[in-house]
């Protein structure tokens, strides 16, 4: 039961990263590849009908965490208090930027909303990456299960870390490159003409960077927490996950060369999925590790809700998620195809 709920939470977070990941990435790159007002509007239109639904995965994932592992939710959210509040402010600004741009009648205001959207997307990605870095590096958990992290201390990975140190900055960087590439693949898939070319070119330029930061993060992770290999050593079959990460990186390269936008987008989705699944497989059964004493770790065993709640939860959760997935299939089919800059094609 605990194993099942661990993976349900992991699946929801992964779905969030893959789905909202492309609209966050589109937010970062629209400032660079979309030059005219028309082009920026087109980029926003590619994510317009879906971004809010994508963001619901974050809410539903957070809620599921609260329900299934209340100790993790309580300890993690209060311990990462300051960065989390900043994430909430950035989510507000991003929603405003996307939606109110269309209501603005002057260039200055449109520029303001474009800036809100772009900068908040960029910072959100870095925060999310750093958050994952913090979870993998561990936090100074106390005996009562709580901790509080300052934004930074001495930038070292020690027993008294801050939210930002050299390791979590690398994690933020990996997220930034990976989601920008993912966003570029999405924009290329959903547009044509000049925008499509620029998005492809950007993705092509960033591919070597993605390769480098992925290897860098692998090295950094193993030097910060060598014990993360334990699950892999005990169950060697798990090594298919890093193999799949490598394969999806290669697929990205090959399909871009063949200019198959859809396959490239699916490859970067697979890359994100396998990276996160690999991390989840490495930390299980830990949910939050202590930097000082492994017996203080928050695990699926000490963080979970009562058995009865979890058992009936499976029924309504399964039912609700089946409905949710059917809406997603419906909506993505309604809005499939490319967004054209003029005329009546695409979503009209």
């Amino acid at each position, binding site marked *: 039961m605990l194993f099942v709920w661990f993976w349900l939470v992991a699946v929801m977070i992964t779905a969030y990263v893959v789905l909202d990941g492309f609209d966050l990435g589109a937010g970062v790159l629209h400032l660079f590849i979309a030059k005219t007002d028309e082009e920026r509007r087109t980029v926003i239109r590619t994510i317009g009908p879906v971004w809010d639904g994508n963001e619901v995965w974050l809410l539903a994932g957070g809620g599921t965490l609260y329900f299934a592992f209340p100790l993790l939710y309580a300890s993690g959210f209060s311990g990462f208090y300051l960065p989390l509040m900043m994430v909430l402010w950035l989510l507000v600004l991003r929603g405003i930027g996307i*939606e109110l741009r269309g209501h603005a009648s002057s260039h200055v205001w449109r520029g303001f909303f474009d800036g809100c959207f772009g900068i908040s997307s960029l910072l959100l990605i870095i925060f999310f990456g750093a958050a994952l870095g913090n979870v993998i590096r561990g936090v100074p958990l106390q005996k009562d299960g709580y901790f509080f992290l300052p934004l930074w201390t001495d930038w070292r990975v020690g027993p008294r870390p801050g939210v930002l140190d050299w390791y979590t900055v690398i994690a933020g960087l990996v997220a930034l490159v990976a989601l920008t590439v993912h966003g570029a693949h999405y924009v290329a898939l959903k547009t044509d003409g000049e925008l499509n070319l620029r998005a492809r070119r950007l993705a092509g330029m960033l591919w070597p960077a993605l390769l480098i930061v992925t290897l860098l993060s692998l090295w950094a992770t193993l030097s910060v927490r060598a014990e993360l290999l334990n699950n892999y050593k005990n169950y060697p079959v798990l090594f298919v996950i890093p193999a799949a990460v490598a394969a999806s990186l290669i697929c990205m390269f090959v399909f871009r060369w063949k200019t198959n936008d859809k396959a490239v987008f699916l490859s970067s989705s697979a890359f994100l999925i396998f990276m996160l699944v690999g991390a989840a497989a490495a930390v299980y059964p830990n949910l939050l590790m202590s930097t000082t004493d492994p017996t203080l770790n928050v695990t699926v065993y000490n963080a979970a809700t009562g058995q009865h709640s979890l058992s009936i939860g499976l029924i309504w959760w399964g039912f609700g998620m089946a409905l949710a997935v059917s809406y997603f299939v419906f909506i993505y089919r309604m809005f499939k195809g490319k967004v054209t800059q003029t005329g009546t094609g695409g979503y009209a």
Partner: protein
Amino acid sequence: MDGAALIHRLHFAFTVTFHYLFPQLTMGLALLIVVLKTMALRTGNDAYNQAARFWAKIFGINFLMGVVTGIPMEFQFGTNWSHFARLTGGVIGQPLVMEGVFSFFLESAFLGLFLYGEKRLGPKGHWWAAFLVFLGSWLSGFFIIVTDAWMQHPVAYQRFADGSFQVISFWGLLFNPWALLQYAHNMSGAVITAAFVMSAVGAYYLLEGIFIEQGRIFLRVGVIAGVIFSILQIFPTGDLHGRYMAQHQPVTTAAMEGLFKTETGAPIVILGQPDEEHRRIDNPLAVNKVLSFLIYGHTSAEVKGLNEFPKDVWPTNIPLLYYSYHIMAGLGTIFVAVMVVAVFLLWRKKLFASRWMLWILMLCLPFPYIANTAGWMTAEIGRQPWLVYNIMRTTEGYSKNVHAGNALFTLLGFMGLYTVLAILFLYLVHREILHGPGGAVTDVNLAGPITVA
């Protein structure tokens, strides 16, 4: 109560109060838009479709504000109320996840289709999109009320040795009697807000002499919905909720009514200022025996006063609770009076020419917001000093690891950010109202981004 506890309470109170200014209109308007769409389908009169399109624009901006201010709420259980979250996740985690899974996915999927898919879906399909958005928003309200109702009146739970709770009856939690009463009362309040907003815009158009035909539709729908729901708000929903409360939170009822001493044939205090120190109401304007009658159905019944309860279970801010309740109930009564007169004029076909009544309807616009806010303050201040009624105190629940300085920092941040949001909201909605209804089906390529708000 120490400094940190107070800041954490203000933090939640500020963000949730600001947030609920938006969903009350979203939920009420969703129903009225379905009404407009239904009228359009049945009468074939396109003016109703135009009216629906106009309100859909207001709805879109309002919904966005509700979404962006709502996301922080879900996280604040963990950030600011971590100990509460840790113990209650097994119970209220359930309705909170259900809200995401059953209503947010539904709303977010169909809102885009509702706002920008009218051409593509056709009249019937578009009606369904409007209906599903309505359903999603009303379900969302239900799950939040279930969450709050469990804190007000905990049911269907079991407690473990470490103090944590889990659900023992799925349906028992969802159909908590408190939740059903509170839901009925709350949703009727949301429709009142929408009805007053709609009739205020209609009144403004008629007074200004613009968009006359649309203004009349807004007034007709707004006033009829307004009279129905402002009556339902008092009877039966408010009445039943009040009686149930008197039974299960008698000390809260006594504090709300300003009843310091137990009395048989207790009076109802209409005006007056509670003096907690001397345990009396100053300058009281009271009607004898009415309180006993309202709660127990006969004029000589005994109503327990605050003197019956130890001071450590008294609500922590009795004057604010008393005023919140009196403002809510007073405004609720005035709403009935305004709407009854307006609907009478509508029936006599004099409403559209009665400028004095149009002025009143227009100026009433802020008051349903005040009444709904005061109602929630009554419920939540009345629940004090408990976080989970009679089980867990508010002072036990907040995040002890987040000190007052950090909490104040983020509270100030929210205040600044939300001030900007409020200005943007008022500016954009005002512009839409001036721009007015009319025109054909929104054409996506002219209207700019296709958005899901």
